[in-house]
């Protein structure tokens, strides 16, 4: 087809407003929210506002990046919040030399990060193993670690708060590079890598193929089990990092609270971002925008004196509206 005929074909199709909304709805909503805030919210256009919103959304986005990949294969990962708790419980035990003595603080922090994120990744791999090897439904397979994982973190710490003041470690949550919070940089790096993987790599294509039609993918020679293992391991890896960011910000690790409810925040961000929950399609940038939209709605309401409880209801309405609009766009 020449460019001219293609243009003619495209031009002949009637424009469906839902299709436009579905494709650009999140961006439009985000722009509208920013405009609204610029007019009505005092002190909105400040660096501080930007930082507050970015730091709050950061851990959700980090977890949601892994969740997007999992959901793209047609799965789901309920264990992320519990894995955050495990990673958050483990790291201070290492860098405060509770497990074994380490002389050098830099070495201790490095080991803490490697061990905490490593364990979370392995637990993610365990999820993948249950799903790939035994063909257990993802929602049940990850329910195991959702329930047991937080218990493990609580048992490790005896349910007690671990407080610390280790600037070398807390740089993850409190440090800045060129004025940008370090955690935001971590978030952006993960988003960029994941978006690149999905769009440009064979592995990314395989993820989408499995989500689209698992049987056909297997028959066409894709190593379905291996891809699933890796995807759940990545989700565990992201959760592990998010757990470290949370405890670094708080200067404390509470196994009862770190990552509580995170699985649902992350899934909501993915859904609002336009990734199909049935798999086969994924938009990492969409997930980032989805998380930002949910966060900005909350911020807008709270900054204008609306109570948190009402903001929660508004969040629910936005999730449903976003998903519904996207469906209309696709059905048309």
């Amino acid at each position, binding site marked *: 087809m020449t460019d001219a005929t293609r243009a003619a074909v495209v031009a002949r199709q009637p424009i469906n407003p839902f299709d436009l909304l579905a494709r650009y709805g999140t961006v439009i909503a985000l722009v509208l929210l920013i405009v609204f805030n610029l007019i009505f919210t005092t002190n909105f256009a400040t660096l501080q506002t930007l930082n507050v919103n970015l730091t709050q959304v950061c851990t959700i986005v980090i977890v949601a990046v892994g969740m997007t990949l999992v959901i793209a294969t047609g799965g789901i990962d309920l264990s992320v919040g519990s894995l955050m708790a495990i990673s958050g419980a483990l790291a201070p035990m290492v860098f405060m030399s509770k497990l074994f003595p380490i002389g050098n603080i830099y070495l201790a922090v490095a080991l803490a990060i490697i061990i905490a994120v490593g364990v979370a990744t392995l637990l993610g791999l365990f999820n993948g193993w249950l799903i790939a090897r*035994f063909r257990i439904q993802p929602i049940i397979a990850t329910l195991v670690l959702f329930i047991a994982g937080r*218990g493990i973190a609580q048992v490790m710490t005896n349910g007690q708060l671990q407080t610390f003041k280790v600037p070398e470690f807390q740089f993850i949550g409190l440090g800045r590079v060129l004025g940008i919070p370090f955690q935001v940089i971590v978030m952006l790096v993960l988003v960029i890598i994941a978006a690149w993987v999905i769009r440009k790599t064979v592995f990314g294509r395989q993820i989408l193929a499995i989500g689209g039609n698992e049987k056909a993918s297997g028959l066409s020679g894709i190593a379905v089990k291996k891809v699933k293992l890796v995807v759940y391991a990545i989700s565990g890896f992201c959760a592990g990092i998010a757990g470290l960011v949370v405890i670094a910000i708080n200067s404390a690790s509470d196994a009862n609270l770190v990552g509580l409810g995170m699985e649902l925040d992350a899934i909501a961000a993915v859904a609002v971002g336009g990734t199909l*929950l049935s798999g086969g399609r994924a938009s990492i940038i969409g997930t980032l925008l989805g998380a930002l939209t949910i966060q900005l709605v909350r911020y807008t309401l709270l900054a204008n004196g609306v109570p948190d409880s009402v903001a929660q209801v508004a969040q629910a309405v936005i999730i449903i509206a976003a998903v519904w609009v996207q469906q209309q766009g696709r059905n048309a």
Partner: protein
Amino acid sequence: MTRIRLARMVGSYGVVIALALLILFGYLRYENFLGLFNIMSVLRYNSMFALVALGMCFVIMTGGIDLSVGTVAALGSVAAAYASPYGPIAGLAAGVGIGLVVGAINALMITRMHIMPFIATLASMLAASGTALLLANNRSVPVSYQSGFTELGQGNLIGLPIPAIIAAIAFILGWLVLNYTATGRGVLAVGGSEESAKLMGLPADRIKTLAYVASGGLAGLAGVILAAQFGAGQPIEGVGWELFAIASVVVGGTLLTGGVGSVGATLAGVLLLGILFTVLNFENGLGWISLSAYWQSVIRGAFLLVVVILQARLIAGETTRT
């Protein structure tokens, strides 16, 4: 074929056998394990979870899921607490009523707007929690102790805890509906294959609506008992109840893909996970070991793991042979 039978056996009786073994273990090992006081408190406390799991069981049998049950119970407890001065009936009506409303909204989103159950009930979970906090002004709402409302959670009737009686009635009704009514068979048909059920002329949307409305109502009822038992409406309670209920249903052998399920095995699943906790307490009482309450979730998780791996292996054997 024998493997299919075996899978069904483990699915529906395995949990009962495990429950019997656990109770036997407790009886042999601990004094007073089967004492009246212990039995009563186990039944009283677990009746709330049993009600929530019953609703979840029906929803899962249709092939769906209901994540909103925990926060709907919280919302129900707040509504019941406000209505409690007007007596137990008013409290029941308020709590169950608000649960039915949320269930109906869930059903509308799923059947009319065609939103996936997971997302629809995730949203109503948030909305119910927000509404509960708003109604309760972010505090717990004390119930009236004069109107007889607290009897619903703390009272006894013919020597049995009233909440346990309520749960027992609900389960008997649930069992009758599932096994002896067209709607009940329809639930399984829709869960087995919605397309075929529709082609056979079954009102799939109506059946699904009933399942979600029932789940909402039962969650509201659990909230009423929560408020009556603890003397206050608790807007922040119920966190994680939905996943506990899903775990109980799965342990009971109901498949999350829908189409297969048992009300009785779900009850056994709830009791099994609940009694694990009691056993832990008794074990600590012996003084040999000291396992903190946190081990409870680790043990529950490990238990769930064993059950799902067993189920998966049996089902895998079933499909590769046919």
